[in-house]
């Protein structure tokens, strides 16, 4: 935020990847039986990362730097093919980086010390944190792809080994969907670089180079089937990977299985962060590298995003399993983010960026609440829960705040993002904005029904529902604080990201 200037000699961003990895190495070297030490190492590594990221956020200056990128580090990696190690941070990635560090700290904090094979669990979480940080920081397309794929392996094992119910099925479905998207993106990445080489003679996978020479041209389909614009084709290649990760309707079918099967620390990361990486990819690559294609294909994707809002909301309404309910709520909210992105105007994109952080905070908190309820009552079935609030007033109060943030009450963070997105969508596509508005109403319905049904109706049924403990409040505190801070000072985020968003090629066309 430009509060101070950081020395440029320190590789700040590399450290954000290296610290979790070093933590993982230390965990690997710790004996399996030292469970307390393992968990504390995990907390320590992710806490240091969070501190580091906060230092970076504090030293970030508005609208400074080449393409508004700061803390850049560029080194040759595989020079013969034009691959480099290039990292940097701008308005698109800055706050997600913070969210990343925060959610991983929370995920490790809420990991039960009784988790089987705790060592491998913490190890994989730390590796995952390094990979997701790398995704947000990479400015070389191959480097980005390496981190993108590297993220898959820990997630696959975290779901497949520590999950519940049909975990192997869920993990495998997730894997196959993601890999299909990834390879489509890989081919698109190779093609982007090849086209750029043909057009400019410069062999590079560097985002800062490619963004200045948008691909153009038309590909004649064989057998006289017509022609398709090359930017559109490449746009779709990237879009498939990001749409699956987000997920965008109708590529969401892996989501309920994976979210429901994941253990709570994993689902916090998966819903809170990984889904946003898909949205981030749309902004960083689709909108920046293919502005023309974004204009021509944006409306179609906006329709899909709006469908996702309504579909997710309706599905959330009919769920009885609370984890599934929150999973579909998450999907519905991601639809808003998609709508904002594909509206393709300043308000929409700013709203989407704000909402990405908000969604991460809110969904993580909701999943934590579900986990706390399940731990106390042994069930996630909405029908079996009644009147919990009478026994645990503090629990009820905190849950109410989170619920209100989730349904977008003004004064809390959810409203800020949704409002900006609705404004952006209204300028771009009025009917979609109206449909999204219905989604807001549905959100109020399913969220309040969840809260009222389980906490308010008397008589209090499951006896001995325990009040929130200090540790529980401690985990929720940073999330609640963010909900209120963002809610009452809504201009904070948009101002910080405005310079970067205004420079996005899609807005310049």
């Amino acid at each position: 935020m430009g509060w101070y200037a950081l020395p440029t000699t320190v590789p700040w961003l590399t450290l954000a990847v290296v610290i979790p990895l070093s933590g993982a190495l230390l965990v690997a070297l710790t004996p399996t039986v030292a469970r307390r030490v393992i968990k504390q190492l995990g907390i320590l590594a992710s806490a240091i990362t969070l501190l580091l990221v906060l230092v970076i956020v504090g030293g970030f200056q508005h609208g400074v730097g080449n393409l508004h990128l700061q803390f850049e580090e560029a080194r040759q990696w595989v020079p013969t093919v034009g691959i480099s190690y290039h990292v940097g941070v701008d308005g698109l990635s800055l706050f997600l980086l913070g969210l990343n560090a925060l959610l991983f700290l929370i995920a490790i904090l809420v990991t039960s010390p009784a988790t089987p094979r705790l060592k491998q669990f913490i190890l994989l979480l730390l590796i995952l944190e390094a990979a997701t940080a790398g995704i947000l920081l990479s400015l070389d397309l191959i480097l980005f792809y390496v981190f993108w794929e590297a993220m898959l392996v820990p997630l696959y094992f975290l779901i497949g080994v520590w999950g519940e119910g049909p975990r192997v099925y869920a993990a495998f479905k997730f894997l196959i969907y993601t890999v299909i998207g990834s390879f489509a993106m890989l081919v698109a990445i190779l093609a982007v670089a090849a086209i750029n080489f043909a057009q400019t003679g410069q062999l590079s996978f560097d985002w800062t180079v490619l963004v200045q020479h948008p691909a153009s041209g038309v590909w004649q389909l064989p057998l006289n089937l017509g022609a398709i614009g090359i930017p559109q084709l490449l746009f779709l290649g990237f879009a498939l990977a990001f749409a699956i990760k987000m997920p965008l309707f109708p590529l969401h079918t892996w989501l309920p299985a994976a979210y429901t099967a994941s253990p709570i620390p994993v689902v916090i990361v998966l819903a809170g962060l990984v889904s946003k990486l898909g949205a981030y990819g749309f902004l960083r690559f689709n909108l920046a590298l293919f502005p023309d294609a974004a204009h021509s294909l944006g409306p179609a994707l906006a329709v899909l995003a709006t469908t996702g809002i309504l579909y997710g909301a309706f599905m959330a309404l009919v769920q009885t399993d609370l984890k599934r309910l929150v999973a579909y709520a998450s999907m519905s909210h991601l639809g808003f983010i998609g709508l904002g992105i594909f509206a393709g105007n300043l308000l929409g994109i700013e709203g989407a960026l704000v909402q990405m952080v908000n969604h991460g905070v809110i969904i993580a908190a909701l999943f934590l609440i579900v986990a706390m309820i399940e731990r106390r009552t042994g069930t996630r079935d909405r029908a079996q829960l009644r009147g919990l609030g009478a026994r645990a007033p503090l629990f009820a109060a905190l849950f109410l705040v989170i619920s209100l943030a989730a349904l977008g009450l003004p004064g809390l963070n959810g409203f800020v993002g949704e409002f900006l997105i609705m404004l952006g969508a209204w300028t771009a596509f009025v009917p979609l904005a109206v449909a999204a508005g219905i989604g807001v109403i549905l959100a109020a319905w399913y969220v309040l029904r969840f809260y009222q049904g389980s906490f308010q109706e008397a008589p209090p049924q499951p006896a001995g529902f325990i009040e929130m403990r200090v540790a529980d409040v401690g985990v929720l505190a940073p999330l609640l604080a963010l909900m209120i801070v963002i809610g009452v000072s809504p201009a904070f985020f948009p101002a910080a990201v405005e310079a970067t968003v205004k420079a996005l090629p899609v807005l310049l066309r």
Partner: protein
Amino acid sequence: MTINLNGLGIDYGAILPELIVTGTAIVVLFLDLIVPAERRRWLAAVSVVGLLAALVATIPLWGQNRAAFGDTVVADSLAAFFNVLLIVISILTVLVSPRFLRALDLDHGEYYILLLGATAGMMLLAAATSLMTIFLGIELLSISLYVLSGFARTALRSQESAMKYLLLGGFATGFLLYGMALIYGATGSTTLQGIAAFTTASGLGASSNVLLLLGIGFLSVGLAFKASAAPFHMWTPDVYEGAPTLVTTFMSVATKSAAFAAIGRVFIATFPSIASRWYFPLALIAIFSLFIGNLVAITQDNLKRMLAYSGIAHAGYILLGILPGTAEGFSATLFYIAGYAVMNFGAFAVVTVLGSGGERTAELSYWRGLFYRRPFLATVMTIFMLSLAGIPPTVGFFAKLFIFRALVDAQIWAPLIVAVIMTIVSFYYYLRVVVVMLAAPEETTVERERVGISTGTVLGAAAAATIILGIFPAVVLNWATHAASLHF
């Protein structure tokens, strides 16, 4: 190419590494008569020393272009690249051998002699620039391997494997030789240089010369057989399964590498002017290999068979790099071969180490919960599986990336799309192994065995190389680029 006018062009320096390996084989042959049975480890030690000497002798050949013996062999960077690769594989195999041989009661000196003989044959094949020397190399490596695959004399499976390999291999050799005869008939030369000169000189005529094209076709069948590319792969699963695992380990990486050295020299260096003729059949072989290898691997419950089919699939990826006929494509091929050698050797070596417990150990069910019984083996196996699947940060990822990049640059779309789809399929069977190893163990009795020091070092080194090359691929890629560029 400089022609050595000194008589027949005798230049022993150019084939010094091959000579050293052959010499070591002969030394070991005699030592075997003197060394008492309980000291057979010495034979392994002598073999390693000889191989290391050959490695040192290879270094001066880097960057040279020494044609020798009347243009029948050449000492160039490509040969040096393969020499290093093959010698390293051979050394690693020898290092793992003594323990395994003793466990299976196969501790005979002939093993090392045959291994060295096969290595010499492969090195010769990589350096061969004449149909005669190609044949010589192939025969030397094949005959050694026929015997090696039947080395477990008392095991019926091993006998069956050797018999199958011998019969089918002999058949393939017939094709190869017939192809060579036809090419000689068409071009009047046995040296690749002479053949290339003929095809270039006859211009368009060469691409409609039926004799020549038929010859190339038969030659391809013989070479594809050695590289175990589909549809000439039928022997692979049975032989890999039946042969002693250690032999399979060596065979699966070394034979394939040497075969691709020859394929590169023949197709890219000798017949570039008729590339439009061999492009389609070669693309078809590659696509077949990708389909059959990856799809059949899914159904395998025996790890040796699974890795055999995965090897067929990888032959397909490697062939894809030949298709563009460019230096870029060929350097991607060379990088892939080096990466494949490291990761596949490692994977088979893990099967070998477990295999000392008996034949049942290659069944996937035996691997249940391996993470809790043998954490080290399971961890390195995970690394090899991820690398074979092509997940970063492992060498397998960059190997595939470079091949895909060469295809995109050459605008070869159909094989690329097949390769991409089949790579997705391959995730299933590679990751299945990892999932099985993570599953809860069935039996409660936990038998924890220690891995021997030399075996542990070899496995650790292979795993480390898999990851290090996956993070810093530039060095090996530069070597590959240099070795590949000599052709053009």
